[in-house]
């Protein structure tokens, strides 16, 4: 796999750091909620020790809240584990729709902070390609980041992965402000280096408010 390693290395590290920081923040939030609910359970036991009656429903609610956060934490850690393993092999067979949903999950906090909704359309079939999974995630994130800034008043990005004749593509749509952002240099040098490394293509159709990322069925080794 050829490429500008200086740019790819720096971009990749930045991406890894950004996602890791966001994941750790999410985990902290989960822990904070568990901490407060565990604290409440402790408060209830202190009350009981003083002879005050406890409503079982209050205990049930708190236990349910803790279980909800444990499920949330488990989801976050599962995503983090998949993300960390994406650097294991330079070329792997991946399901593009699956990778897209992972990047969307990793980006959900950034979208929330910007008040943007990410709508992921389910694929009709699996979308297998052979590529570098980490570069692929990095490129999807950079395009998604640009897309989130191009939604205009709609404040939503619709994403869809699908098979094509020569491989696969990801479509970003509902980008009402693509025209306004035309003057900005996108794709920049980071996106260009990733597109080259993955032998991928990027088409911006501002009249439709869409961006298409295309991938070959198999990237070169």
């Amino acid at each position, binding site marked *: 796999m050829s490429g500008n390693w200086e740019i790819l290395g720096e971009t990749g590290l930045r991406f890894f750091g950004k996602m890791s*920081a966001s994941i750790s923040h999410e985990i902290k*939030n989960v822990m*904070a909620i568990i901490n407060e609910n565990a*604290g409440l359970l402790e408060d209830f036991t202190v009350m009981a020790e003083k002879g005050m009656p406890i409503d079982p429903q209050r205990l049930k609610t708190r236990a349910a809240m803790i279980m909800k956060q444990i499920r949330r934490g488990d989801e976050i850690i599962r995503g983090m584990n998949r993300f960390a393993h994406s650097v294991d092999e330079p070329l792997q067979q991946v399901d593009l729709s699956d990778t897209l949903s992972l990047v969307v999950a990793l980006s959900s906090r950034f979208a*929330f902070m910007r008040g943007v909704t990410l709508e992921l359309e389910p694929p009709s079939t699996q979308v297998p390609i052979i590529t570098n999974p980490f570069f692929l995630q990095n490129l999807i994130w950079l395009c998604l980041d640009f897309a989130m800034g191009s939604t205009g008043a709609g404040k939503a990005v619709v994403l869809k992965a699908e098979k094509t004749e020569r491989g696969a593509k990801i479509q970003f749509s509902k980008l009402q402000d693509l025209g306004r952002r035309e003057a900005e240099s996108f794709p920049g040098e980071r996106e260009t280096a990733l597109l080259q490394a993955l032998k991928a293509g990027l088409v911006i159709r501002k009249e439709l408010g869409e961006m298409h990322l295309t991938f070959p069925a198999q990237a070169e080794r």
Partner: protein
Amino acid sequence: MSEKVLLVDDEQDFLDAMATRMKDRGMDVSTTTSAAEALKKVEEGAYDAVVLDLMMPEMDGLEVLKAMKEKRPELQIILLTGYATVQKGVEAMKFGAMDFIEKPADLKALTEKIHQASSQKMVLVEKKIQEKIKRMIQEKGW
């Protein structure tokens, strides 16, 4: 007298549990998940302390802090965050935060800070009143 506290965080489940515990400790607690609503509440009510999450949608926590301090300079704001960095802490103090606490917070420590905030606010308000009286006396020539 119970402290009047405003809790601001984007996680509703966190607010619910934290507010319940604080109310059980005799505090008068209001909550909101929105930065804009928090600013409105600060304008409308006299809080002894605001516990504010640094990472808020719509507006950055430091921006919210700055806007609150502009509206009510005497307001005591304790920042709560999932990731405490020295740089953020220094910035927060520069903008007038009373303290900076990392999540998950220890409620005992937070409660102490709220008591402290309440006393500090009282001192500031009393000082303001004294200055006002002094100015009136000077103006009237009493």
